[in-house]
């Protein structure tokens, strides 16, 4: 009522629509009840054959929408979602199994495994836009060039971007192959100081020390979207508390 029925075509269209992650999550979460009812189908707790493809795509899309929202709790929520899935999907559906493996790799901060799953797992066709969106094969340079608050926050939030930010905060000096492992780049080539790999980092403002053969990351700060106009928050809060006492 109010929301069109959950269909394969509609879902494919939704995934390709490039909706902001929060909206995508909101829309998909409204479909979860319908998916549960479809899965229950004829009264059986498992999905009937006709719906299994739709349900696989729905739950996989919903899973990725959790990751894309980048809320603090998104991974915990994605984990909770994997617990709510119809059991047969958890056990037999390749896409759902890959989602669960991906979640485990994320939980264990196993970057190599994360990139491998994103790139090689058998994701259904209709899910590709979300998988690619999450992996985000962007030129690392783009981060460097989007310096305003709104532009930068628009760019941040995908796995490769996040990894770049994480490494830039964690390391003062890093071997190229280790940096490459965080970003899903060719580690063997990086270990040989392949100029094309090194260039990807220097384009982000990192410094390449030829003598020590180490990269020196330039920290990237992600300003909070709530920071504008909040310079007086502390003063205002204290004033408010002060007034309350009188």
């Amino acid at each position: 009522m109010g929301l069109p029925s959950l269909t394969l075509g509609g879902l494919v269209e939704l995934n390709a629509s490039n909706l902001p992650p929060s909206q995508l999550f909101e829309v998909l979460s409204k479909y979860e009840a319908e998916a549960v009812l479809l899965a229950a189908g004829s009264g059986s707790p498992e999905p009937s054959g006709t719906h299994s493809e739709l349900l696989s795509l729905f739950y996989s899309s919903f899973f990725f929408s959790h990751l894309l929202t980048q809320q603090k709790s998104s991974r915990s929520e994605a984990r909770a979602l994997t617990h709510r899935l119809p059991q047969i999907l958890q056990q037999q559906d390749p896409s759902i199994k890959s989602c669960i493996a991906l979640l485990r790799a994320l939980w264990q901060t196993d970057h190599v495994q994360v990139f491998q799953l994103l790139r090689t797992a058998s994701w259904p066709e209709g899910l590709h836009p979300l998988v690619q969106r999450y992996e985000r094969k962007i030129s690392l340079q783009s981060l460097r060039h989007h310096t305003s608050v709104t532009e930068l926050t628009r760019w941040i939030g995908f796995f490769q971007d996040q990894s770049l930010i994480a490494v830039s905060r964690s390391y003062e000096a890093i071997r190229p192959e280790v940096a490459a492992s965080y970003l899903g780049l060719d580690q063997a080539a990086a270990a040989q100081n392949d100029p094309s790999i090194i260039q990807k980092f220097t384009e982000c403002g990192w410094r390449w020390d030829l003598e020590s053969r180490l990269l020196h990351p330039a920290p990237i700060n992600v300003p909070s979207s709530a920071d504008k106009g909040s310079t007086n928050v502390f003063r205002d809060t204290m004033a408010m508390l002060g007034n309350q006492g009188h």
Partner: protein
Amino acid sequence: MASLNEIVVASTEFGNVVHPSAEAYDRQIRQHLSFLRRALSNQDLNSVLNDESVFDKLDPSKDSITYLLILRHQIKAAQEKAGKSTPAKLLPIGGLWRRMAYYLENFEPVQTRYVGQEWRQVVEVFAQTAEEFSQPILATQVIRDAILRLDPSSAVFTSTHLLFARLCLRAKTYSCALPVLKRPICHIPAALNGSNLRSAPLLCDDHQSSLAFLGEKSGFSSKLSHKEFLEYFLYGGMIFMAVKDWRNASHFLATVVSMPSVGVISKIMLEAYKKWILVGLLETGKLNTLPSITPSHASKTYHTLAKQYVQLAEAYERGDSRKFQERFDSGEERWKQDNNTGLVLQVSESLTAHFLKRIKKTFASLTISQLLEQDTPLPKDPAAAESIIASLITAGDLKATLVHSSNHSGDTMLRFSAGSNSSRLSHELDVQAQLKKEKLMLEVLMNRIDESKHNLALSDELVDHLRKGQSWTGAGENGADKDDGADIEEDIMVDFA
């Protein structure tokens, strides 16, 4: 005797009427309600009223009252006919289920203030049906939106809050619960009675506080005791735990733990205390001190009854990983019995970050090999240890940086620092954003405090009532075992580690 057609016509008229004033609107609603109650008691109309197609002629967003009363009438009739509380007609996919969902998604909140009891009954049936269908998730989002539609502030605690929190836990839809849980509860319906109701403005008027229309007699809540209140905060704490929001989890659990009581503490309180200790370790790395309002006898009882938890926390706090492991192993059965294994495992995992924070107090920097020479919970493989440290830094749990050696086979240096200028700026921006959030929360709370002060100043009866309310804590007096605690018997954190 009104016919079905007359009811539909009256509903359409009522839905289209323009209300010149709150008084006139109040009068119209009451007249309409009275007309409907009379009409629905007409036995001759039973057959037509029990025909689901009647809902196609009604619009709950314009006239919520008619839709709700007929819905309630049909639910009751279906239950009586089938001789059980959830007949097939009510089950999901069934007609009445869809009507209930449609009503709860579209009701008009001001009119609904006049039919609180019926609204609550429909919510309860909706939740119960979803649970009986083994799919509580079908009801969580609808009920959450209904709670917030009725009272966007969600400041008055009702039995629906508890039902909703329990449902979210069972359905494992934690984020769904957050919009309600994050709104501070400022009142319980019992706080408004007697003279306040008489002097209260009209239900349909604009009110600063939702307590004006969610009072005890509104019917929006079933009778509440301290147990429901404690359960809500325990469930809320568990939901925050599931999304790893340790701060809010700690706050919710502390509310349970510090509940005034005379004599023996309840099982719910003890359960909350055990979780509160573990959550405190995850939040601050310390065995937190109990809130100052906790009764002293309760503090002693907690300490005695949860000794294993206290000892585990003490070992953690000292950073004594061997002792911690010993106590972790010896308490294994206890954690399992209490459904706290997952949480204890998380505490165990956080020991590394805690250890590094302690090391930071002594060393400005040291190599990974030097670090591994210490009594550390880190793995002995330097590469694995580095990876764990890097992920702690990334997650913001440790303020440090790693420096690879120019000699590529050399050791990685861990440098503790206050961070670079840019990372400090980032931290300050985070603090600033947090302050802004807190300010908004404080504004809401200040308004509530002002209201409470106003109520207290105006009503002697309220003061008397609150005084009597001291005995509200009584159920815990009879012994810890009386309150069997929350009925969510599951270790929700069990596979986190």
